[in-house]
């Protein structure tokens, strides 16, 4: 048996899907998730429709994520010189990826829909559910393939019905199977998009702009900064006008000497070269427009409030996690600039804290101002919002500490982990905060906010202690 597996090219390719540690972790998480959905669906039975809706959402999200991972893995194998030079390389890789996709994505989505049909709480059509899953999978897989901001346009277009009451009713109708023709059209379109992706993968070569877009975030950052000629397009992307403008590179036309400058001035200097630059202002402006839009389209004020808070609370952590790993690749050289090890690490920490605090301040200020001026939420709702603010600040301190702690490991795939972590912590805090604010438990809010802040400061100090003994090469 072992010999047969070792001799089979297809089996060997399939085994590559189990090799990288991050994929194993995701696979194990997915397996636990599937088990949890199955057990919960059976145990809850016909009693709680809210739980079943959550299970549908969770199962669909997992299927979408698995599908995108398979497509990204296939790209990593095929956007490679071997695909062009080794005979009979592409076909088995594409076949294995397609089989994995059919078994895991279609299988997982069908199983979740089947379980729901069995408990019969929600009227879920397999066609409608599969259509939703495959449309989102195709979008995410193409996003992983192209890694272009232009992909935000189709994603926004697909998600836009959620913004409107009529749109949500239409989506609900498709999910229930009430609009079978629309369901089949969506299903066919998503399958066509996935077939097109497989077709592109089967023809990947170095002249294609998406060939050099590294799938691994760590690789993507590194190739941008080292000038590897294989990744010329990627390097050029790092020097694009948009990137230069967003990073406010013009401020380096005239740079004051900071050799003898004070602590915070040096910290600001470190931040300028690597931080998010003008990005928080753009994101804040988008939120400022989005909040009143949400208010006008959501049926309940609290939902709009929740969405605005989610954005203002989680985006800073996600922006931070996506930006600061860039410093990994210059850390060694920059640690040799005139500053002691302690001074260097303290200045880096201060630069990160400054960046995080300013991003959060921008987003929160614009969101709250926009909510006050344009959304015109009732005073009661606004008071709840203000009450949740200390809690959100505490959450930010906690998230910052965890991110600085994690950044020490300098592993590419860990950039993704904080994004989920931030989302999980932010959502949990938000639900708790919303509940407490609703009940006007100001004392409890302050206590929890203080506890979160203390925990965040403690983790940050521990991170600093660990950074002191971390090799910076």
């Amino acid at each position, binding site marked *: 048996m072992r010999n047969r597996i070792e001799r089979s090219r297809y089996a060997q390719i399939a085994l590559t899907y189990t090799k990288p540690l991050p994929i194993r972790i995701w696979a194990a998480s997915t397996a636990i998730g599937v088990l949890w959905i199955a057990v919960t669906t059976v145990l809850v039975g016909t009693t709680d429709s809210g739980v079943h809706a959550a299970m549908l959402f969770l199962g669909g999200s997992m299927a979408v994520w698995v599908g995108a991972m398979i497509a990204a893995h296939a790209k990593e194998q095929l956007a490679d010189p071997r695909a062009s030079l080794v005979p009979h390389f592409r076909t088995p890789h594409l076949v294995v990826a397609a089989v994995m996709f059919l078994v895991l994505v279609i299988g997982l989505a069908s199983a979740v829909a089947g379980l729901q049909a069995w408990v019969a709480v929600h009227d879920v059509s397999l066609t409608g559910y599969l259509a939703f899953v495959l449309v989102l999978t195709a979008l995410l897989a193409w996003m992983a393939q192209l890694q272009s901001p232009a992909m935000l346009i189709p994603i926004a277009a697909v998600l836009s019905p959620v913004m409107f009451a009529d749109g949500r009713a239409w989506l609900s109708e498709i999910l229930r199977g009430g609009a079978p023709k629309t369901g089949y059209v969506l299903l066919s379109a998503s399958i066509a998009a996935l077939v097109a992706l497989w077709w592109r993968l089967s023809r990947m070569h170095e002249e294609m702009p998406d060939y050099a877009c590294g799938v691994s975030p760590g690789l993507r950052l590194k190739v941008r900064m080292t*000038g590897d000629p294989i990744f010329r397009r990627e390097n050029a992307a790092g*020097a694009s006008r948009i990137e230069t403008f967003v990073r406010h*590179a013009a401020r380096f036309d005239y740079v004051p*000497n*900071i050799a003898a400058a004070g602590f915070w001035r040096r910290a600001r*200097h470190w931040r300028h070269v690597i931080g998010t630059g003008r990005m928080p202002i753009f994101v804040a402006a988008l939120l400022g427009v989005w909040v009143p839009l949400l208010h006008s389209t959501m049926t309940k004020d609290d939902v709009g409030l929740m969405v605005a808070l989610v954005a203002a609370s989680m985006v800073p952590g996600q922006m931070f996690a996506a930006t600061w790993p860039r410093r990994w690749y*210059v850390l060694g050289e920059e640690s040799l600039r*005139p500053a002691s090890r302690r001074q260097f690490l303290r200045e880096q920490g201060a630069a990160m804290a400054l960046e995080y605090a300013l991003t959060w301040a921008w987003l929160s200020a614009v969101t709250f101002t926009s909510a006050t001026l344009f959304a015109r939420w009732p005073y009661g709702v606004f008071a709840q919002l203000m009450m949740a603010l200390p809690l959100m600040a505490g959450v930010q301190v906690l998230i910052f500490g965890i991110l600085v702690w994690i950044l020490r490991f300098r592993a590419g795939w860990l950039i993704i982990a904080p994004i989920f972590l931030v989302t999980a912590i932010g959502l949990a805090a938000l639900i708790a905060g919303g509940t407490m604010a609703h009940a006007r438990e100001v004392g409890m809010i302050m206590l929890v906010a203080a506890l979160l802040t203390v925990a965040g400061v403690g983790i940050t100090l521990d991170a600093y202690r660990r950074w002191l*003994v971390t090799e910076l090469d």
Partner: protein
Amino acid sequence: MSDAPIAPRAPLQLRRVHKYYGASVAALDGVDWSVPAGSVVGLLGQNAAGKTTLIKTALGLLRPTRGEAQIFGEDAWDLPAAVKARIGYVPQVITLYPWLRVRQLINYTASFYPHWNDELVRTLALNWAIPREEKVGNLSVGTLQKLAIVLALGHEPELLVLDEPAASLDPGARRDFLRTILDIAADGRRTILFSTHITSDLERVADRVAILRAGKITYDGELDELKDSVKRLHVTAEAPLPPTFSVPGTVRLKIEGNEALVSVRDVSEKIVDDIRRNYAATVGVQDLNLEDIFLELHHA
């Protein structure tokens, strides 16, 4: 603590430095070494000999598993700002900010140093055809390497450490780079350490050479001494040479019938005379260039 004698005021010293990756992979295996002030030292070694690890450990970017690394007498792991201002470093893989223009990156780098020779930087950038208005992300690997060297020279460091600095340079740029190194070293106040595979470069500029093999320094001394000490003997005997044929200080020996090729260290007239007399042989003594010596020492 090692009792090995260390040259006074050596800018860079390693004392019994061990560096392990994981539990068992020894990249450095008890290195005792110092770089004398005012010297230009070439660090030679095969792939995976530990050159980059040695350089990074010496600079405090990696922490020795055991032993001690010092720069200008200070612990390399925790160097004061004043000592760092005296160091220039060009890593093997150049990593810079792609969204900055060359002149912006120069401004940014200069801002950290109390002293910066803008004239030198301008001249070097001009001579090496580094476009000051170009975005760093659009530069070729060779130009990036030139830029990194310029940035490392701007504050006129007393100790310049370069990890394979000429690997991506074309022959013209390499020649210019070597000339610059010679100019910098000319006043005798600066110390330069560079690792390389290109032995002809090393012969052109280095006055000392250190050979790193499997994590140990197997030779450390004057380049001329090394070239004087290692010779190749062409032995042609009247009768077939016995398998027991040997020469004191043999580095490599190859016997074929009446003939033998022997690479030896510290060969003397007496040794050559002994071979002639004992085996009724003619002996030709051949000088070796650094590349040949490197290959002989590594049995390649």
